[in-house]
């Protein structure tokens, strides 16, 4: 199977970590600058990455990082990262939808201006509002991150090292990857979150740190461009 990826993206990082941690056979294709070509759009009209390409899927491919991790866990019977029992699975799914629906949009609004990524239509950052208004919008997003973070801490982890319990789940991979972008704005993570990130890297080793290196390298590059 082939993964079409953009290496500075944490959405891509999540899947890149997963396939390495799960020891799956894969090839990676860096599609920087290629996601709006006719060839790519023919396979992926959403022009999104990460994209998994495999003949076994009905349309030959799919996008959505969480769905990719769920699919591969189902396909390869990887209960370790995605438990089979419906109730345990429900917790992982709930956490992932909460990340994608609530936390990630806030992280995007908070960090994309620093990362040099365009924002989404309808956001203040993407509008023709003046710089002051845009800065205020970014600030509001940054301030709003604390609440979902605390929800992960108190509700999903609740004294356990990971959402998955003793070992990381795909929800943890998605969460940790998302939090990597916060370094772009020097966000002050609470100590439990710093420990969590270290625990993720310790637990998954190179499978985590190698794709993380691409995100961190991009963030370092962006920061180095400040005059």
């Amino acid at each position: 199977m082939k993964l079409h990826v953009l290496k500075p993206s944490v959405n891509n990082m999540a899947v890149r970590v997963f396939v390495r941690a799960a020891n799956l056979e894969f090839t990676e294709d860096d599609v920087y600058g290629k996601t709006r070509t006719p060839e790519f759009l023919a396979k992926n009209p959403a022009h999104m990455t990460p994209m998994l390409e495999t003949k076994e899927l009905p349309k030959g491919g799919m996008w959505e990082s969480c769905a990719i991790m769920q699919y591969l866990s189902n396909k390869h019977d990887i209960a370790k990262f995605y438990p089979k029992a419906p109730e345990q699975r429900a917790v992982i799914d709930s956490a992932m939808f909460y990340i994608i629906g609530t936390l990630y949009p806030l992280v995007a609004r908070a960090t994309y201006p620093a990362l040099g990524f365009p924002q989404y239509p309808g956001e203040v950052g993407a509008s023709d509002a003046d710089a002051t208004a845009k800065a205020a919008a970014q600030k509001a997003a940054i301030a709003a991150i604390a609440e979902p973070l605390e929800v992960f801490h108190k509700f999903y982890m609740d004294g356990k090292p990971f959402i998955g319990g003793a070992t990381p789940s795909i929800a943890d991979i998605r969460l940790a990857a998302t939090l990597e972008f916060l370094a772009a704005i020097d966000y002050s993570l609470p100590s439990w979150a710093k420990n969590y990130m270290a625990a993720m890297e310790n637990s998954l080793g190179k499978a985590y740190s190698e794709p993380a290196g691409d995100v961190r390298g991009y963030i370092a590059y962006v920061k180095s461009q400040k005059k």
Partner: protein
Amino acid sequence: MKLYMHPVSMTSRPVRLFIAENKIPVEEVTVDLFTGEHMKPPYSELNPSCLVPMIEDGGFRLTESSAILKYLADKIGSPAYPKDLKQRAKVNEVMDWINTNFYRDWAYNLCYPQLFPNQKRRSDEAQAAAIELGQENSKRWLKVLNDYFIGSTNQYLCGNEMTIADYFAACLVTLGEVIGVDFSAYPNVQRWLNNMKKLPSWNKVNEVFYGLVESVKQQPFVAI
């Protein structure tokens, strides 16, 4: 022992690599160069040069990656810094040559002015002149590295055994990868770099460095 460093600091890389390869118990402390942490207290009080890397071994502080490598190698009795008078002198010679000759042009005239806005020369003309000088001298130094220090038969810079000169130089020479330098015109250099990249800790130590290389891959840098 603490190592104050940053993952994309070029000169921190050789020290991190030597520490990782030799499993020296060191606590790595990231000094955030991007928020100016190195220029303010407390770090500026520990190191008035406001640079990384720096080690703190008990109360003993040491800066300069070349000096740190020598200290660490001697501390653990590593054969990578030979005790024989002439062999040691050769290692010192190569490390000094890298610092006083190679890296000055490679980094400060060729690579850094293209990579970092605060290293860019003040006018287009000055910038072009710096890069031209950097290219010219880098080619000269790479030829010496290729033909003299390595040659067609040596595996490493000081012969067939890896020394701290190799740790030092390999990290600094690979800075060129950020601007897309092709070493194929220097086959002995290429062969030597391939040897160094086989070190078990090379990929790990350089994860963020290679992330940086990936990030700028599409940019139209001038190489050699």
